[in-house]
C-alpha cells in the first residue's frame, strides 16, 4: 500500500468524553487507513466507539469529547489543525455521511428536495438553480425514487425511501469519502436487503471511498472489501473481509460471527457473546475483552495485547498463535456460557 | 416512609424545588403567627404625637413598611394578607384538583360518550376568557372570598381534568388494570383502587400549580375592585394604593404586597415544576 494512495489515515487516536464521573475512553488508540476507492467496514457492538470515531472525522463531536492523543489525516492534512472555515468546506464536499437513522435525520419541516439542494447551494456557490434541480432529480433517479417526490416532506416518505433519500443526499456532491453509519439498522429485513443492493449497485458508478459502520457483520460481508473489528474503543482485528470472516483470528470476531446468521451459506445455530462491554471510565488492566473471553489466560488479565500485523492483517490477541485450535473449541456454544459462570 | 419519600424526595434533587418549599413554609409560618407578627391591627389608624393622622409616612421602626393614606400600617396589612392569600390559594387549589382529578378519572376510565361529552365541556370552558368571567361572576354574586374561590374552581378544573384524563388513558391499558377487570372488580374499585393511586402524584403537581392561579386571580379581582371586602388582601392593598395619588410617592405602599404575591406564586410554580419531574419523568425537560 503506497503512502499517497491513502485518503484517510487515523493514527493512534484517543477520544475521551469528559463527564462528572471521569473520562470515558470511547476511542482509545485506534489506527486505521482508508485508501482511495476503498470500502472499509467498521464492526462492533453498540457503545464500542465506532460512531464516535466516525463523527470525529467530520469534527462533529460534542464539546465534552476531547482528543487526548493521536491524529487523523485527511489527504495528509491533520484534521484537528483545520480552521473552522476549512472544516466547513470539507464537510459534505469531501466527506459526507449517511446518518444512522434517516427517520430523524431529515428536517421534518422542509421539503426533501430543499434539503438536498441546500447542500449544493452551500458548497457550490454560483450554480444555477436549474442545474441544482437537474442534479437533484438525477440523484433521486439514481437511488430509485421518482424525482417528482423531491417536493415531498420527510413524513410522506416510507422508512426505506427516507434512507434512500439520505443516500442520495450523501452522494449529491460526489464526495471522496462517504461514512455510512448503520444505514440499515432501523429498517425491516426486506427493505434492508433492498438498500444494501442499492448501495452495491451504486458502487459500480461511485468511485469514492466508503466507511460502513455497523454492528451487523453480514452487512459488511455484502458491501465491503476491508473490515475492522472494534471492541471497547480499540481495534481487535483488521483485514480483508473474506479473510477475516472465513478465518477469524480474534476470539471476539469469532463470537461476533456466531451472533449473526451466516450469509456465507453455513447453517448454524446462533451464539451470542454473553456479558456486556466493560466500563470505559475505569478500564481494567490487560485485554479489555478478557472478562468475556472464554480463552483468556493469566497474561490476558495483566498485559494489553500488542497489535500484530501480518499480510495486511492486524490482530490484537495474546493467543494468536493458538488460534486454529481455539476456533474448534469455539464451535461449542457452551464454552461461551461457561466462561460467564466462571467469571461470576 | 415510601410515600413521604416520594412526596418530598425531590427536594434533595432539585434546588429550585427546595427554594420553593422554603418560601412556602415561610409564608405558612407568617400566616400561622400573623397576629403575633403584625405589630398593629391592620385596620387601625395611627396618629403622631400631635394627634394628626400619620398619612403615608415612609418606613420607620414603628412602621416597617410605612403607612397608608388612612394612616394604617402597611406591614401589618401585608402580614395579615398572607392568611387570605394562602387560604384562597390552598383551598381553591385543593378543590380544583379534587374536582378535576375525579372528572379526568371518569372521562378517561369510561371513555366513549361520557368522555366525549366531558371533553366537549372542557373545550367550551377553554373558550371562556378566565378573568373577565371571574370578574362578572364575582360582581354579580357579590364580592367575597367564597365567590372568588367558586369562580376559580368553575373555570380552572379543566386543566387538571385534561391532564389526568390523558394519564388515565395510558394507565387503563396496563396489564394489572385489565387483570382487575377480568377478576370482576367493580368500576368504582378499579378507578379508585387501581388507577387513582397512579395519577395522585400528577394531581399533587397541579395542586402546587393551581395555588398560584388562585392567588393571582384573587389579587387581580381585588385590584379591579371586586376583592373580598372585609379582609386585608394583598390585591386590595395594591388597589387602594393605585387609586390614591400615593402610588407615585409611597413606594413602600406599592412594593411589599407585590413582592409577597410574586414570591408565593413563584413558590407554587417551583414546587410544582420540580415535583412534576419526579411524578412524571416523561415530562422531564419539557
Amino acid at each position: 500500500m503506497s503512502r499517497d494512495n491513502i485518503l484517510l489515515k487515523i493514527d493512534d487516536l484517543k477520544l475521551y468524553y469528559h463527564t462528572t464521573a471521569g473520562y470515558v475512553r470511547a476511542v482509545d488508540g485506534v489506527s486505521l487507513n482508508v485508501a482511495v476507492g476503498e470500502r472499509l467496514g467498521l464492526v462492533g457492538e453498540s457503545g464500542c466507539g465506532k460512531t464516535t470515531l466516525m463523527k470525529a472525522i467530520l469534527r462533529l463531536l460534542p464539546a465534552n469529547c476531547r482528543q487526548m492523543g493521536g491524529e487523523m489525516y485527511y489527504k495528509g492534512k491533520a484534521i484537528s489543525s483545520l480552521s473552522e472555515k476549512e472544516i466547513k468546506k470539507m464537510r459534505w464536499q469531501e466527506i459526507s455521511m449517511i446518518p444512522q437513522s434517516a427517520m430523524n435525520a431529515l428536517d421534518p419541516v422542509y421539503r426533501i428536495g430543499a434539503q438536498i439542494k441546500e447542500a449544493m447551494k452551500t458548497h457550490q456557490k454560483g450554480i444555477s438553480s436549474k442545474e441544482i434541480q437537474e442534479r437533484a432529480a438525477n440523484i433521486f433517479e439514481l437511488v430509485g425514487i421518482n424525482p417528482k417526490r423531491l417536493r415531498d416532506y420527510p413524513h410522506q416518505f416510507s422508512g426505506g425511501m427516507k434512507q434512500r433519500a439520505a443516500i442520495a443526499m450523501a452522494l449529491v456532491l460526489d464526495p471522496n469519502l462517504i461514512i455510512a453509519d448503520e444505514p440499515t439498522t432501523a429498517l425491516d429485513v426486506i427493505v434492508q436487503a433492498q438498500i444494501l443492493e442499492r448501495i452495491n449497485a451504486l458502487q459500480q458508478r461511485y468511485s469514492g471511498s466508503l466507511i460502513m459502520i455497523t454492528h451487523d457483520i453480514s452487512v459488511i460481508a455484502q458491501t465491503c472489501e476491508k473490515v475492522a473489528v472494534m471492541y471497547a474503543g480499540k481495534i481487535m482485528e483488521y483485514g480483508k473481509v473474506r479473510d477475516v470472516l472465513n478465518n477469524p483470528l480474534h476470539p471476539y470476531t469469532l463470537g461476533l460471527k456466531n451472533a449473526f446468521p451466516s450469509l456465507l451459506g453455513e447453517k448454524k445455530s446462533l451464539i451470542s457473546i454473553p456479558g456486556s462491554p466493560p466500563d470505559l471510565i475505569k478500564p481494567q488492566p490487560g485485554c479489555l475483552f478478557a472478562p468475556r473471553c472464554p480463552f483468556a489466560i493469566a497474561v490476558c488479565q495483566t498485559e494489553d495485547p500488542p497489535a500484530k500485523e501480518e499480510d495486511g492483517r492486524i490482530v490484537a490477541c495474546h493467543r494468536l498463535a493458538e488460534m486454529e485450535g481455539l476456533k474448534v473449541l469455539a464451535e461449542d456454544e457452551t464454552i461461551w456460557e461457561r466462561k460467564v459462570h466462571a467469571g461470576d | 416512609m415510601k410515600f413521604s419519600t416520594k412526596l418530598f424526595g425531590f427536594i434533595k434533587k432539585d434546588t429550585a424545588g427546595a427554594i420553593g418549599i422554603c418560601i412556602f413554609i415561610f409564608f405558612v409560618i407568617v400566616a400561622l403567627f400573623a397576629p403575633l407578627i403584625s405589630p398593629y391591627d391592620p385596620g387601625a389608624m395611627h396618629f403622631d404625637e400631635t394627634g394628626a393622622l400619620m398619612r403615608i409616612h415612609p418606613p420607620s421602626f414603628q412602621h416597617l413598611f410605612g403607612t397608608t393614606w388612612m394612616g394604617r400600617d402597611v406591614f401589618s396589612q401585608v402580614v395579615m394578607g398572607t392568611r387570605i392569600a394562602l387560604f384562597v390559594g390552598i383551598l381553591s387549589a385543593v378543590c380544583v384538583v379534587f374536582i378535576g382529578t375525579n372528572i379526568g378519572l371518569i372521562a378517561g376510565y369510561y371513555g366513549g360518550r361520557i368522555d366525549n361529552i366531558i371533553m366537549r365541556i372542557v373545550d367550551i370552558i377553554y373558550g371562556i376568557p378566565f378573568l373577565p368571567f371571574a370578574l362578572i361572576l364575582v360582581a354579580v354574586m357579590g364580592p367575597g372570598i367564597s365567590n372568588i374561590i367558586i369562580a376559580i374552581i368553575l373555570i380552572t378544573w379543566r386543566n387538571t381534568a385534561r391532564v389526568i384524563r390523558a394519564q388515565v388513558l395510558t394507565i387503563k391499558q396496563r396489564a394489572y388494570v385489565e387483570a382487575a377487570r377480568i377478576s370482576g372488580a367493580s368500576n368504582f374499585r378499579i378507578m379508585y383502587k387501581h388507577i387513582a393511586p397512579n395519577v395522585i402524584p400528577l394531581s399533587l403537581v397541579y395542586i402546587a400549580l393551581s395555588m398560584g392561579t388562585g392567588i393571582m386571580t384573587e389579587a387581580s379581582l381585588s385590584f379591579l375592585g371586586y376583592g373580598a371586602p372585609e379582609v386585608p388582601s394583598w390585591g386590595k392593598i395594591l388597589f387602594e394604593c393605585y387609586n390614591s395619588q400615593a402610588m407615585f410617592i409611597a413606594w413602600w405602599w406599592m412594593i411589599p404586597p407585590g413582592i409577597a404575591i410574586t414570591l408565593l406564586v413563584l413558590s407554587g410554580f417551583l414546587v410544582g415544576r420540580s415535583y412534576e419531574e419526579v411524578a412524571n419523568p416523561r415530562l422531564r425537560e419539557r
Partner: protein
Amino acid sequence: MKSLSKYIAKRLLQMVITLFVLSTLIFLLFRLVPGDPVSMYLDAGMSAEAKEMLMKQFGLDKPLWEQYVIFISNLLKGEFGISFQYGKQALAVIGDSFWNTLILMAVSLFIAFTIGIVGGAILAWKRGTRLELAGIIGVLTIRCAPVFWLGMILLSFFAFRYQLLPLGGMNTPGTNFETVYAKYFNLDFLKHLILPAITAGLSAAATPLLVMRTSMLEVIKEDFIELTKAKGLSDREILFKHALRNALLPVVTVFAVQAGLAIGGVVLVETVFRWPGMGRGIVLAVAARDYPVAQAAFFLIGAMTIMFNLIADILYAFLDPRVSLD
C-alpha cells in the same frame, strides 16, 4: 387547501357552539342575582313610575324565558340589545374599544413572542452559563408577578419619575382625528402604546420563552441538526433555519393558550394604563350593571380568544407539514 377550509369551517362551528353556551351562561348570570340595573340610577330623582318605565324599557319586566328568547333572536341578528347606559346598540358602544384592545393585544403578543422566541433560543444556546441562570430567574419572577403591579411600577418609574412616556390613555387629549388611520398611525399613539404593550408583553413572555428554551434544547440534540452540521452549514444557518424553525412548533401551541390568558392580562393592563379598550369597558359595564354592553364585550373577548386559537392552529399547520388539518 381544501382540507384547510374544511377544518376552519369545523372550527368555526365549534366556535359558534362555544359562544352560544358562553352567552347563555352570561345571560343567566346577570339575571339570576340580586341587584338590578335600575336601582343603580335611583339617585337621579326618579319616581316609582319612572323606574317601572325603565324596567320596561330594558325589557326586564318580562319573564325570564321571554327575555332569553329575545336575547337569542337579537344575537342571531348580531345585536346584544340597547345599552342601559348609552341608549344605543351595545356593539356600537363597544365600537372603537374593540380595535383599541385588538391593537394592544396584538402588539403585546408580538412583543411576548419575540422576547420568548429570541430569548428562549439564546438561553438554550447559552446553556449552563450564568446568563442562563439570570435569565431564567428574571423570567420566572416576571411570570409570577401580578401584571397590574408590574404596570404600576413601570408607570410610576417611566411616566411619573422620569416623564419619558405618557401617564396612560391612548392619545394626548384635545386632538381631533380626521380618519381612523390618523388616530392609530401617529407618534403620539405609539408613545401611549409603549408602556401598556411592554407590560402585557413582558408578563406574557415567560411561558413561550421557557417552552422555546426546552424545545430548543431538544431540537439541537436531534439527528438532523447534526446532519445539517455535517453538511457544512454555518452555525447561524443551523440555528435560525433549522433549529429555530423546528423549536417554534411547541411555542405556537403555547400561543393559543397564551392568547386566552393575555386577554385576562389586558383587562388589568387597560385598567392600570386607562387604555380605552374592551377590558376596561367590561369592568365599567359590570359595575354599572349594563347587561347588554357587558354581554357584548364578554362575547367579543370570547370570540377573540377563540380566533387566536384558530390562528395558532392554522399557523401550526403552516409551520409543520406533518400536521394535516382534518
